[in-house]
């Protein structure tokens, strides 16, 4: 999110086009405006150049070298990318990340939709809305640590309860089958409230009279939800999906704190793999190549989603 706004801001007003179309009656002052505009934009531009543009260029360059942090990089051409194609761990990381994204986004969005609908139709309590945000306000590392203790196989509270109910013990974070769904659930717990609020904000924009006339026509809550709420929520839903999908792909901290990629690579997601390559094995060149590929994947996904977003813009206008 932060990256998006920082990048987007300098583009609109700073582009030459906006200077060409001055407001009526202010034509003569246009050059001054432009100067002032640049002045105001300078800090953001500088930050963008220093912290985004420059590292991006460097990253792409490193991806073509054998840079290992400790020695000067040598240009190796596409070697890193060739290695990538045959790297089982890379493909596994992509697969595992995809699995995570599907489970996480799926459960999180459905739950959030349900919560938002309940809030919209049942209560308007501000306290309740604030409570929903609490998990989202907890730093991810804390969330990871908290759930690591709760979900621990032998000492955790969750297994203690399951045991008391006679349901046996589950290695939520230590079994290869459970580790990824558990982490997806933990992050869904952390983000559902936030997503629900975004969706709720979208629902509030839907005119009340639609519901009133629908209920006069004898429609039930479920019918109103599928026939009114969902279709009119589509633009907001699309936006929420774009944002949370990118965020979901970047899952890192929960895994770094809890499973560290284990057991046997079951949670070695792409971000964690990049991190391992860069800062544990010092393969900065290779890590950059993986990062570039991930950026491309995210770019394509975002483009696809943006199209969907645009296509469904004006249902309410």
């Amino acid at each position, binding site marked *: 999110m932060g990256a998006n706004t920082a990048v987007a801001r300098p583009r609109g007003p700073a582009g030459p086009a906006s200077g060409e179309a001055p407001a009526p009656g202010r034509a003569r002052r246009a050059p001054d405006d432009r100067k002032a505009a640049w002045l105001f934009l300078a800090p953001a531009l500088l930050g963008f150049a220093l912290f985004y543009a420059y590292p991006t260029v460097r990253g792409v360059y490193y991806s073509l070298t054998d840079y290992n942090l400790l020695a000067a990089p040598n240009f190796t051409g596409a070697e890193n990318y060739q290695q990538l194609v045959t790297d089982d761990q890379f493909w596994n990381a992509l697969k595992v990340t995809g699995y995570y994204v599907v489970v996480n986004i799926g459960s999180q969005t459905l739950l959030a939709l349900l919560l938002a609908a309940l809030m919209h139709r049942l209560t308007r309590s501000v306290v309740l809305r604030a409570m929903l945000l609490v998990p989202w306000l907890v730093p991810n590392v804390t969330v990871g640590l908290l759930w690591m203790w709760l979900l621990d196989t*032998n000492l955790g509270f969750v297994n203690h309860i399951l045991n008391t109910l006679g349901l046996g013990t589950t290695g939520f974070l230590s079994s290869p089958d459970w580790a990824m769904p558990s982490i997806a659930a933990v992050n869904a717990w952390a983000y559902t409230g936030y997503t629900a609020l975004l969706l709720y904000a979208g629902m509030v924009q839907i005119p009340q009279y639609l519901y009133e006339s629908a209920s006069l026509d004898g429609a039930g809550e479920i019918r109103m939800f599928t026939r009114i709420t969902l279709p009119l929520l589509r633009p907001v839903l699309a936006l929420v999906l774009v944002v949370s999908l990118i965020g979901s792909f970047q899952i890192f901290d929960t895994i770094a704190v809890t499973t560290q990629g284990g057991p046997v690579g079951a949670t070695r997601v792409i971000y964690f793999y990049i991190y391992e390559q860069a800062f544990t094995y010092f393969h900065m060149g290779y890590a950059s190549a993986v990062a570039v590929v991930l950026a491309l994947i995210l770019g394509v996904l975002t483009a696809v989603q943006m199209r969907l977003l645009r296509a469904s813009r004006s249902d309410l206008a």
Partner: protein
Amino acid sequence: MRSLRVRAGAALLCLAASASLVSCGGSDDTAADGTVTLDYWLWDDRQLPAYEDCAAAFHEDNPKIKIKITQTAWLQYWQNLTTQLVSGEAPDVWVNQTTYSPTYATGGQILDLQPLVERDDVDLSGYQPGLTEPWVKDGKRYGLPKDWDTVAVVYNTDMLEKQGVDAADLQNLTWNPTDGGTMEEVVARATVDTKGRNGLDPDFDKKHVAVYGYLPEWEDASQGQNGWGEFAAINGFQYLDKNPWGTEYRFDDPKLIETLDWYKHLIDKGYAPSLAQKSELGNTELLSAGKAAMTLAGSYSISSYTGQNARQDFDFAPLPTGPAGRKSAINGLSDAIWAGTPHKEEAWKWVKFLGSAECQDLVAERAVVFPALTSSTEKTLAAYRAKGEDVSVFTDAAAAKDGTFLLPITERGTEIGPIVQDAIQSAILGQTSTEEAMRTANDKVNALLE
């Protein structure tokens, strides 16, 4: 489209950028009056007070040199060090470890101490045997030993007593991969199900275990220092063609495979938790919570079991004797000087002091770790005794003839670790046969060293 790509890329790369931004410390370490401040890094918070003692004593002898100690947790230590090295802001002296050392030595980041050792005639014979070699490669010396650790059995005294096992029974345990020897018998007895039956009882219910007899460690990289490495070593396993600095690993050795299969057998019997049901919180936590009776522990973790916060009564016993005798891993740390330090002589003075009897005796008094000089060992034991702790099994292991083995030291150790760890885990989980998992991993590892 292009801007989107850049955006996504930028978001990604800020991870790398922010990691290196942390390393923006000042480098103005020579004051107007000529006082030099040396940066010294270590990771173990338990050892921090001991080295603060040393720093104070050193400053007294050398008023013109100040030591600034920075302690960083293990998980961040090497990343921080690397980013500092890259940005030319590295600490003058840091505590070094054998897995990471080769990367920095090969990368030209560590000062060769051999010329200085020769110039100042430093006596290296006083160190615990085996501790100086890991730091020497091709005639270059990348550090002076500072401490060592060995491994022993740690057990819950009450639990074993209840099962009729006393300390004397644990002094001469035997082990072999076929029937597990007396070690397996003790482990079986120490395992208790929820109805109070131990592992030798024919009615023992392995599906409802209240206390596990033995806790394996599965996150032990390519070394197995806290478990499989020891059992494999007493079974006659050798990691490498030559250690240190071998070029061919032997992870496909049947002796190691037998050992891992014995571990699987322990799990099948219900004496140890399966890998899919291990605790993410770690073995120490499980033992402290009274959910397990025994494991292997390194001397660096003594205080986790004996400190005032320990919630159970633990004691230590020697490792079992296997077909190839009784052997404990011995591992040590060293102090390394950054090749780029502007204060070479001062740093060397400090490293010499760290390796001297004066500093090592100060460390000994704190009773947190065994200093590298054998002359300080007895003092450490005395300091432990003063706290009411008998930890002589660790020093006995170090002193025994052929009683120790070196953990593997090669290039690319940080990459080899996860490959072997994943292979062992997949074998224990039954995803692949032990033989196949280890053979594949061994081929991968040796390909890295070609």
